[in-house]
């Protein structure tokens, strides 16, 4: 076993799921491998760090934020706001006026002198969506001030992510001291932001004080950003000394931020501002293209180790934005990855590469993947190759190769843990077209000739091809009953546990409760008891279930106690 295999075992062992032989193998490896020993020791320290309780006010704060966020979304045109040196609306507090007037001239001057790419403040532009006004011409053409204010949203110019509207937002309750601190904070951050090449700042504006701190950009401020073509709105408030919050204008969502704690004027505000600037620069203000360019630089750097170059490939796998990043997998990237795979003697690296390229439809991948499927000595690599070949089912010969592997690969037995498929299983799944997937899952579930584990495994949401079945409803209304029946009859604790785990994706069915209660109360396998407890927490409306879960607080197994108290 190599280090990675042992790490896999140790991860599993966090839930005490190893056999004695596996535990001994892991212990022996740790005793002889100082690298693994150090890595695990370090992580154990991190895992043991305490987590303080959340504040009791958090639920209320969230409720308030939900309410105010929704209100802002519902009534976008009812709330006056300003950009520029004048605060509109009588309700705006004197503090806000003082805050703005004290700053505006200074900002305007420094903006023009510190950087030619910085846009001076849009002084004198008073904006009220109820009384539309025309903006003055911007001193910098690249500002793209947008359509005349008050026109339809459809007229608004495209947003530039590197244009930021900076708004101050004094809280209604802010005192003079708080204003001073926030003012200094504003200056320091603006000054730092001006050092970023290509960033355009629109300063001198203020937002109206809000009763609640919104985690959504207030609609009027969002409108300001849109009309000025600014991709971001940076709000600097007096809250807790100084809170700087960067919002994405398009979505109104947070895109970064930070808070300078403490009521006193900070002594190291510049450090905080620099920190803010660096994070904005490296995060929200780095566009996808730049991020891709950085990743490519790493990937193509032949002087780096294979492992290091691989990090470049991982950078291209941003889970929540796969569409944008997938475009980065051009022939050069794929070619570099294939090249590394061809020469790497490290099975982990080869597996990582094929995993990283899953879903990339580049024909130059087909032959190397087929080669890996047939001849790579490591089962983990063949398994990943099979999974990644799913993308090429339309290429002649690929489906047949997968079917052959499903029938002939030497790795035919499921691995020792439930979550790792054999190569045969992986190839079998990979050979199924997406359109047929749910019916394939269903046919497996219904196939009484298959071993129960294999039947359930088709349903389990943790296979290597990423096609997770989160909802039992997708494979048929009666599927939950079938899974329950398999679990009820199956004596193998792993399979029984898997059945209860799978059922967590189904609608709660009270007819399952008696069997689950029996398992929670009596099953000798602690993990079956824990899985039953997790499932039962969905029936906590029943007094009998509640009592059983409460009794489980005395279960000798920590896994069961946690499951009964936390659910899932």
């Amino acid at each position, binding site marked *: 076993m190599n*280090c990675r295999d042992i*790490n896999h075992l140790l*991860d599993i062992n*966090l839930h005490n799921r190893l056999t004695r032989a596996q535990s001994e193998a892991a212990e022996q490896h740790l005793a002889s491998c100082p690298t693994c020993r*150090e*890595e695990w020791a*370090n*992580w154990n*320290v*991190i895992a043991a*760090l305490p*987590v303080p309780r*959340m504040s009791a006010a*958090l639920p209320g704060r*969230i409720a308030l*934020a*939900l309410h105010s*966020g*929704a*209100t802002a979304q519902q009534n976008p045109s009812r709330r006056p706001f300003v950009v520029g040196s004048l605060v509109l609306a009588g309700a705006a507090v004197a503090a806000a006026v003082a805050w703005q007037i004290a700053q505006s001239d200074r900002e305007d001057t420094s903006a023009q002198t510190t950087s030619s790419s910085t846009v001076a403040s849009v002084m004198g532009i008073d904006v009220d969506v109820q009384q539309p006004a025309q903006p003055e011409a911007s001193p910098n053409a690249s500002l793209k001030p947008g359509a005349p204010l008050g026109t339809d949203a459809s007229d608004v110019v495209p947003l530039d992510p590197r244009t930021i509207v900076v708004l101050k937002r004094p809280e209604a309750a802010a005192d003079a001291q708080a204003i001073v601190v926030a003012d200094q904070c504003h200056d320091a951050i603006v000054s730092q932001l001006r050092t970023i090449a290509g960033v355009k700042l629109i300063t001198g504006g203020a937002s109206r004080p809000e009763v609640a701190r919104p*985690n959504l950009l207030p609609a009027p401020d969002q409108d300001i950003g849109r009309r000025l073509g600014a991709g971001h709105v940076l709000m600097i408030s007096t809250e*807790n000394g100084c809170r700087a919050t960067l919002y994405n204008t398009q979505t109104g*969502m*947070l*895109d*970064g*931020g*930070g*808070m*300078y*704690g403490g009521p006193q004027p900070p002594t*190291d505000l510049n*450090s*905080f501002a*620099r*920190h803010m600037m*660096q*994070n*904005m620069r490296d*995060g*929200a203000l780095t566009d996808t293209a730049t991020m891709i360019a950085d990743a490519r630089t790493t990937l193509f750097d032949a002087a780096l180790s294979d492992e290091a170059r691989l990090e470049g490939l991982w950078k291209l796998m*941003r*889970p*929540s*934005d796969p569409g944008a990043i997938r475009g980065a997998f051009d022939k050069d990237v794929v070619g570099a990855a294939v090249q590394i795979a061809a020469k790497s003697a490290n099975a982990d690296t080869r*597996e990582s590469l094929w*995993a990283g390229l899953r879903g990339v439809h580049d024909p130059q991948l087909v032959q190397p993947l087929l080669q890996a499927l047939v001849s790579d000595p490591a089962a983990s690599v063949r398994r*990943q190759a099979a*999974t990644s070949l799913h993308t090429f089912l339309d290429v002649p010969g690929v489906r047949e190769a997968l079917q052959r592997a499903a029938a002939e690969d030497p790795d035919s037995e499921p691995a020792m843990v439930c*979550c*790792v498929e054999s190569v045969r299983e992986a190839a079998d799944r990979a050979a199924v077209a997406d359109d047929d997937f749910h019916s394939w899952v269903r046919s497996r579930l219904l196939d009484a000739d298959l071993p129960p584990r294999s039947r359930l495994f088709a349903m389990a*949401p*943790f296979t*290597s*091809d990423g096609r997770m079945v*989160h909802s039992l*409803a997708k494979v048929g209304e009666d599927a939950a009953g079938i899974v329950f029946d398999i679990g009820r009859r199956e004596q193998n604790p792993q399979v029984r546990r898997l059945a209860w785990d799978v059922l*967590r994706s189904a609608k709660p069915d009270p007819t399952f409760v008696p069997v689950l209660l029996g398992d929670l109360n009596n099953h000798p396998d602690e993990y079956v008891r824990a899985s039953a407890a997790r499932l039962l927490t969905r029936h906590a409306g029943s007094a009998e279930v509640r009592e059983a879960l409460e009794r489980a607080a005395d279960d000798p197994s920590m896994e069961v106690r946690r499951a009964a108290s*936390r659910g*899932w």
Partner: protein
Amino acid sequence: MPGKDNKRFSTLVEPHLDALYRAAYRLTRNRADAEDLVQEACMRAFARLTELRDAGPVKAWLLRVLHNIFIDGTRRARLSPMEETSGTLALAAEATCPAPTPEESLDSAQRAAQLERAWLRLDRSHRVLLALRAEGYTLAEISGITNIAIDALTMRLYRARQSLTRCLHEEQAPSARLPMEAVK
């Protein structure tokens, strides 16, 4: 906000707030940031309430939302200055040791403080996996939250622990130590 949605959302989410907060704290090592992260996750989750019907278990769905915010958009977790993070450990880090030899240089408090700084330098995609692991979620559960297949997940956990140790070594090397504001 339709009151019915609001009530439904509260009923669904409130039982899981503590779990969300714990995960968020692990990520940020900072209570204020953790609570903000949870709040944003709730805001975003509320906006997607209609998705919930098909999204499976509520807690996993909420953690998925929180995970996505942390990974992709919100840099809140790495934005606060260090003076806001765990005072106890910061103090421990400042404790002096009488002329330690290299072997003795890391007493447990110092090591924890160094590790915490290393933790905050760790790539967010690695941090989130280890944080969920530290919270006791199983590989299957983390797979469901992060949408990373199990095979890739175990590999990435392995790499995450390697990276943590690399970050620690950088933290321990005086010449390589970065000012705190440069911490990712």
